[in-house]
C-alpha cells in the first residue's frame, strides 16, 4: 500500500518536472505579475497588524505597543455603531439591487441601436461622468437641488414651495442612488458591451430563421449570454459590499442627513484619519474586509448552485 502511494507520488513529481520543462516560458511570463501581487498586495497586508496595536508613526510597526482587541471593542461599543452599520448595509443593498443592474439594462438597450453613430455618441455621453470626481458631482448635485437650482425652478414653475432636499434625511438615499447611476452606469456598460460583441452572430441568425422577434432575441439570447459576466462582476462587487466609497457619501452628506448617511468610511474619516488614529481606522477596515470576505464566500457558493461553472473559484 505504502509502496503504491510512494510510486504514485514519485510519478506525480516526475510529471510535474516534465510539465515545467515543457511549459516553463509560461511560468516565467506570470512571474512579474506574481511578484507585483506579492509586493504590492500581500506584503502590505501584514501591516494590518496595527489594528491590534496602539500604532505610533514614530515607533513604527515593530515598536508600537500591542493592545489586543481594544480597537474592535471600541468600534462595537461606539454609541452610533448600529446606526453606522445599518446605514452601510442599506446603502450597500440599494447599490447592489438598484444600481448594479442598470448597466446591464443600458448595455442591452445600446446594443439594439442600429445607427452606429448614435450608438457611439450615446455611449460616450453616458461614459463621461465616470471621469468626473465626486467632489464635482457633489457640488453639481448641491447646486441643482439648491435654492436657486434647476429642481426648485421647476417646482416654482408649478407653483410649489422651495425645498432643500440636501438637508432632509428622506431624500438622501434617492439622491445617493441617482447620483451613483448617473456617474457609473455608463462606464459599467463597457464590459457588458464587450461581452455582447463576443456573441456568435450565428445564434442570432438561426433565431431569426426560427422567427424570433428582436425583443425575444434580446431576452433569450443576449441576456443569457452576458449573464455569466454579470455574475462574475456581481461577485467582485459583493466583496466590497460594505466598501461604499467614501468620496460619494462624504461629498453628498450634511449634518442634517447623518442619520441615514453616516457610514463606516465617513466615521473612520472623522475618528481615524482626521485625528490621526491609524490603528483604529485599520481595525474598522479589517472589520469591513472580513464581512466582505464572508459575503463573497457565501455568494460564490450560491452562484455555483445556480450554474455549473459559475463562481469565481
Amino acid at each position, binding site marked *: 500500500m505504502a509502496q503504491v502511494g510512494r510510486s504514485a507520488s514519485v510519478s506525480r513529481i516526475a510529471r510535474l518536472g516534465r510539465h515545467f520543462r515543457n511549459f516553463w516560458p509560461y511560468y516565467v511570463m506570470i512571474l512579474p505579475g506574481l511578484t507585483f501581487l506579492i509586493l504590492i498586495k500581500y506584503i502590505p497586508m501584514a501591516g494590518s497588524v496595527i489594528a491590534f496595536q496602539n500604532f*505610533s*508613526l*514614530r*515607533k*513604527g510597526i515593530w515598536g508600537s505597543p500591542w493592545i489586543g482587541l481594544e480597537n474592535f471593542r471600541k468600534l462595537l461599543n461606539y*454609541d*452610533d455603531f448600529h446606526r453606522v452599520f445599518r446605514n452601510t448595509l442599506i446603502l450597500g443593498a440599494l447599490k447592489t439591487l438598484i444600481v448594479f443592474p442598470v448597466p446591464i439594462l443600458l448595455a442591452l438597450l445600446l446594443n439594439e441601436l442600429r445607427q452606429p453613430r448614435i450608438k457611439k455618441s450615446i455611449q460616450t455621453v453616458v461614459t463621461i461622468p465616470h471621469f468626473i470626481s465626486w467632489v464635482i458631482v457633489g457640488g453639481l448635485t*448641491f447646486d441643482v437641488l*439648491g*435654492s436657486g437650482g434647476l429642481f426648485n425652478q421647476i417646482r416654482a414653475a408649478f407653483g410649489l414651495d*422651495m425645498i*432643500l432636499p*440636501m*438637508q*432632509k*434625511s428622506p431624500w438622501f438615499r434617492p439622491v445617493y442612488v441617482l447620483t451613483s447611476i448617473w456617474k457609473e452606469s455608463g462606464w459599467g456598460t463597457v464590459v457588458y458591451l464587450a461581452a455582447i460583441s463576443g456573441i456568435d452572430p450565428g445564434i442570432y441568425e438561426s433565431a431569426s430563421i426560427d422567427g424570433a422577434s428582436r425583443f425575444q432575441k434580446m431576452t433569450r439570447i443576449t441576456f443569457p449570454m452576458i449573464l455569466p459576466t454579470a455574475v462574475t462582476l456581481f461577485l467582485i462587487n459583493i466583496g466590497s459590499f460594505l466598501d461604499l466609497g467614501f468620496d460619494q457619501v462624504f461629498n453628498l452628506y*450634511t*449634518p*442634517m442627513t*447623518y*442619520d441615514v448617511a453616516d457610514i463606516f468610511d465617513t466615521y473612520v474619516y*472623522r*475618528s481615524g*484619519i*482626521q*485625528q*490621526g*488614529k491609524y490603528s483604529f481606522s485599520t481595525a474598522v477596515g479589517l472589520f469591513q474586509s472580513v464581512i466582505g470576505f464572508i459575503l463573497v464566500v457565501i455568494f460564490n457558493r450560491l452562484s455555483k448552485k445556480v450554474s455549473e461553472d459559475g463562481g469565481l473559484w
Partner: protein
Amino acid sequence: MKKLSSRILGLLLALVMMTAGMSIAAAESAETYPDIEYWFTNEGFLPAEVGGAYYNLTKETIGVGVYMPYVDWNGGQTYREQLALRVAANDMPDIFIYNNGIENSMILDGVALDLTDYLPEYMPHVWEAIPASVWETVKANDPTGQGRIWTIPDVTTFTRHGAYIRTDWLEAVGKEMPKTQEEFVDVLRAFKENDLNGNGAADEIPTGGRMEARWMDYLFAMYGVAMYEGYPEWDVYDGQITYSAVTPNMKEALKFVSDLYKEGLLDPETLLNSAGDWSGKFDSNRIGVYYHIPWVAYQRLQGIYDFTGGAVKAQVANLPQISAEGYEGFITVKPTGNSGKMVSADVAKDEQLMKAAFRVLDCQYNMEYRDLEYGVEGMHHEVVDGKKVKLPEDKATQELLILQTPGCQVETVDVISSRLEAIRTEENSWQIDESLALLNGNQADGKIIAADGMPSSVYDGYEDIQNRTLYVEYISKIISGEYDLDKFDEFVDRWYSIGGTEVTERVREWYAGKQ
C-alpha cells in the same frame, strides 16, 4: 584596455578632488547657518524652494535660507497627512506648524524638540513677545506632565471676530443701528423686504452662516453662548466651567435662531453653504449682516465692487454685540490658539541646524525684520517713492511668504493695522479705512473665555465630542425646523452619555488646576 582604465582612474581622481573641494566649501560655510525647511499654511502660492527668490531673501536678511516644498493646506487636512508621512519616513521638516490637537501625539512620540531651556537664550524675542501667562498655560498643558515647553503657540491678543452690517442698506431703509434684539430683527425684516441691491429680484439675505451652523456666532452670543467660529466653547455657567452647547443659554439661543430661519431672515441655505458659497453671496451684494473676521472686510468690499462693475462701494460698520433680555452678550476671545509652531527633535543632532531653526523663529518675533512681511521686491512688493508697497496677491506668480503671513506672530491690533497699511493702495484706500474702523470698532465686545489655553487632550478617546458630530446634527435639525426645540434636551442627555460626562470632568479638573 590600459587607456580605458587610466581614463577611469582619472575620472575617479577628479571625483575625489571635487568632493574634497565640496567638503572644504562646507567647512567654510559652517560660519553661516544651514537651510531650514519650514512648513506653513500654503493655500495655492508657489512653493518657496531652495535657490528661489524667497529663499534668497531670507538668506540675505536673516542669514538662514528658508524653504518649503508645495504642501496644500486644504483646511489643514492635507497638510496633516503630508506631515504624518514625513514623520513616518523619519524625515521631519525642521520647523512646522501644528493645529487641531496633533501636537500632543507628536510630543508623546518624541517628534518635537523640548524648547524650554533654549527659549530665553536663543529665542529672546519669542520669549518676550508671548505673555508670561501664555507660557504658564503651555507648561501646564504639557502632555508629558513635566511642565515643559514644546510649542510656540499662536497668540491673538485682540477681538478677532465680529459681525458687520451694511450701513448703506441701513440708511436706505431709514433705520438706526440696532441696539436691542427687537430692533435687530426689525432691521433684518427691512433688509429682506426692500430690494436693496436694486436688481429687481427678492434675493437679499438679511443674515445667515455656513454649514454646521458655523460663522453666525453672534446670534448665539446674544444669549451668552461661548462660540468660536461655530465651535461651542467652554466657559463658566452657573459657577462651573461647562460646554456652552449643553447649557440652557444654548436652548434659548436655538429658539431665537430657528425662529429667524423659519421667518426667512437667515439664508435658507445657511446649513448648506460652504465657505466659498457664503462669501460669494456677500460679494454678490446680497447679504445685510455678515459675521467674520472684520479686518479682512476689504476683500469682501472689493468683491462687491468687482461684482457690480465698480458701481457699489459698500459701506459697513460693526454691529454692536446685542444681548438678549436677561443675558450678557459677548464675542468669544481665545488668546492662546489651538495652533502654533514646533521644532523637530531631529535638529538637535546638529548644533548648527538647531541654532538656525532658533534664529528663524526668533527673527519672526523681532521687529527689526518686520520688512520680511513685504516679501521679494518685484514679486510681492514694489518700491514707490522709497516706500515699499505691496502688490496685489497673485498665487500664480508669488512664492509663499513663509515667515510673515497672518497668524505668524503675536497678533495685536497694532500688528494687524500695520498689515492693513502695508497693502493700502490708491484704489483700495477706502476699503482699508473701513477695515481699520471695523478692527478698532468692536474690541470692547470681546471676552476671554475660561477655556483659553485648554489642551485638546481633554477629548482623547472621545473623537465625536471633539468633532462635535452630535452637536452639529441636532443643532442643524433644530434650526432647519426638522426637529422641535424639545429635542435639545435629548441632545444634552445623549451628549453626556457618549462621553460628555468624562470630558466635562477632565475640563473641570484642568480648570481647577489653571486657577
